[in-house]
């Protein structure tokens, strides 16, 4: 009776509810976004009759292309800075004694527990023209007294790094913890300078952790909405802001759908390239 109909029945009984729920409220809505991108809007903020390519055409507006480009640049810069900071932190966590390691790990995880909006708001206060950072920098003569640290793409990158850094540290630490540090010593004994050993032995050794870390930052950064909304201003807008504006400002749901399709495809691109380029054993565990 092992593989009999009773087992199939049990399988459906256990997986049916979640498949039904996620199918109805995740899969179908996502597919619906693709469909609605080809529908016109109506004057009442709803979905009009018939089919159109207008929404897709409007995506190639120079203003839209500029936003798409900025989204990509901010996400890439955030990912790069997060990696540069997270690799030494992950390395340190893997090398210190267990007592210190647990303490540091706790300190890295605690910011996760605070509400995301509050963390972004804290930066808005810090970067404010009357806030402490600006005053210190102006006092040192590093920025002119009238300069603004807020409402620019750099502020979005800074706060994104702040938000996503823990997500990069954890997978890199997990990979570094499994790394055999005797390999580094062997490289050093064979005459490699410390940085060369780090680059040629350590970094390739934690490659899986690095790929996971990149996906953990780059994908959510592409879909950022709150950070550019609060600290970015008009000059720091990302594609997420454009989607939200179409929904909340001019209530054009089909155009919002078309923008979302772009975002969905750009999120899938890094995932698929990892799937295609990395041999199975070297993929992050999550894929």
């Amino acid at each position, binding site marked *: 009776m092992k593989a009999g109909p009773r087992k199939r029945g049990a*399988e459906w009984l*256990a*997986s049916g*509810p*979640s*498949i039904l*729920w*996620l*199918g109805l*409220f*995740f*899969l179908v809505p*996502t597919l*619906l*976004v693709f469909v609605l991108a080809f529908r016109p809007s109506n004057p009442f903020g709803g*979905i009009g009759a018939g089919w159109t390519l207008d929404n897709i055409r409007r995506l190639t507006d120079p203003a839209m292309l500029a936003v798409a480009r900025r989204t990509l640049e901010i996400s890439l810069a955030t990912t790069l800075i997060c990696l540069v*900071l997270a690799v*030494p*932190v992950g*390395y*340190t966590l893997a090398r210190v004694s267990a007592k210190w390691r647990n303490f*540091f790990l706790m*300190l*890295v995880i605690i*910011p996760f*527990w605070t*509400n*995301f*909006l*509050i*963390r972004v*708001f*804290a*930066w*808005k*206060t810090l970067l404010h023209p*009357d*806030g*402490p950072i600006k005053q210190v920098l102006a006092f040192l003569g590093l920025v002119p007294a009238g300069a603004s640290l807020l409402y620019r793409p750099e502020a979005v990158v800074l706060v994104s790094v*702040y938000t996503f850094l*823990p997500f990069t540290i954890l997978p890199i630490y997990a990979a570094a913890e499994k790394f055999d540090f005797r390999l580094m*010593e062997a490289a050093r004994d064979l005459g490699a300078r*410390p940085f060369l050993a780090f680059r040629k032995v350590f970094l390739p050794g934690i490659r899986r952790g690095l790929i996971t870390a990149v*996906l953990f930052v780059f*994908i*959510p950064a592409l*879909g*950022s*909405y*709150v950070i550019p909304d*609060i600290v970015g201003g008009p000059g720091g807008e990302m594609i*997420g802001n454009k*989607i*939200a504006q179409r*929904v909340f400002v001019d209530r054009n*749901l089909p155009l*919002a759908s078309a923008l*979302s399709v772009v*975002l969905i495809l750009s*999120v899938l691109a890094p995932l698929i390239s990892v799937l295609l380029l990395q041999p199975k054993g070297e993929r992050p565990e999550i894929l």
Partner: protein
Amino acid sequence: MKRSRLPIWITVGALIFFYLPILILVLNSFNASRFGTGWQGFSLKWYAQLLHEPEIWLAARNSFLVAFGATALSVVLGTAAAFALHRFAGSRLQRFHYALVYMPLVVPEILMGISLLMAFAATGVRLGLGTIFVAHVTFCVSFVAMTVLARLQDFDDAVVEAARDLGAGWGVTFRRIVLPMIAPGIAAGALLAFTLSIDDFVITFFVAGPGSTTLPIRIYSMIKFGSPPLINALSTILLFVTFTAVILSQRISSPRR
């Protein structure tokens, strides 16, 4: 062998970077100055003023209502999902099931928010606490399922086989054998679901309607239009509540020595 001290300095720097903004926010909540420019003396007036903001308390009530409901349903759905993913691993249905459970964890929040909004708009569902509840269950299911699945993977299947061989049906086996053994995983999943639900802003913002303001939505509109010191005070209270909850849950879940 001498090691570079640079990584340690970067680590210390990163930790300062993590805590400095939060620390300044907490300090400013006790600052008498309205704009937080310089210290103008210790004051609790912002906390007192919070008491006169009924909208915040109404929003907090809504948040708790949704979080309790969403946690309850997502724990049931997610646990059943994890059980199926583990027990029937490798079947074609479970490969599809895994992808379906996994995708919401990868997709940026804004996409989940917008697609649910489209679904509600296309079917004419009225936005409100009900739609927020549905949205929260949808993203919580995946987190619960993955947490419970991790626990199931450390679990000895022979125990289940033994129960089955001794004549227990699936229901009895699940209730009497599996459930008690994975209870810590379920508790961890529930805690995660509750935290995610009470914290969520982006998805909630898209599917909220008039009169269904949750605490994060209220905080957002305070950030956009409100008074900074009030947010500092509210944030400090929330920080205190979360830290206490986390420390308590760690005390409960950590093995006694």
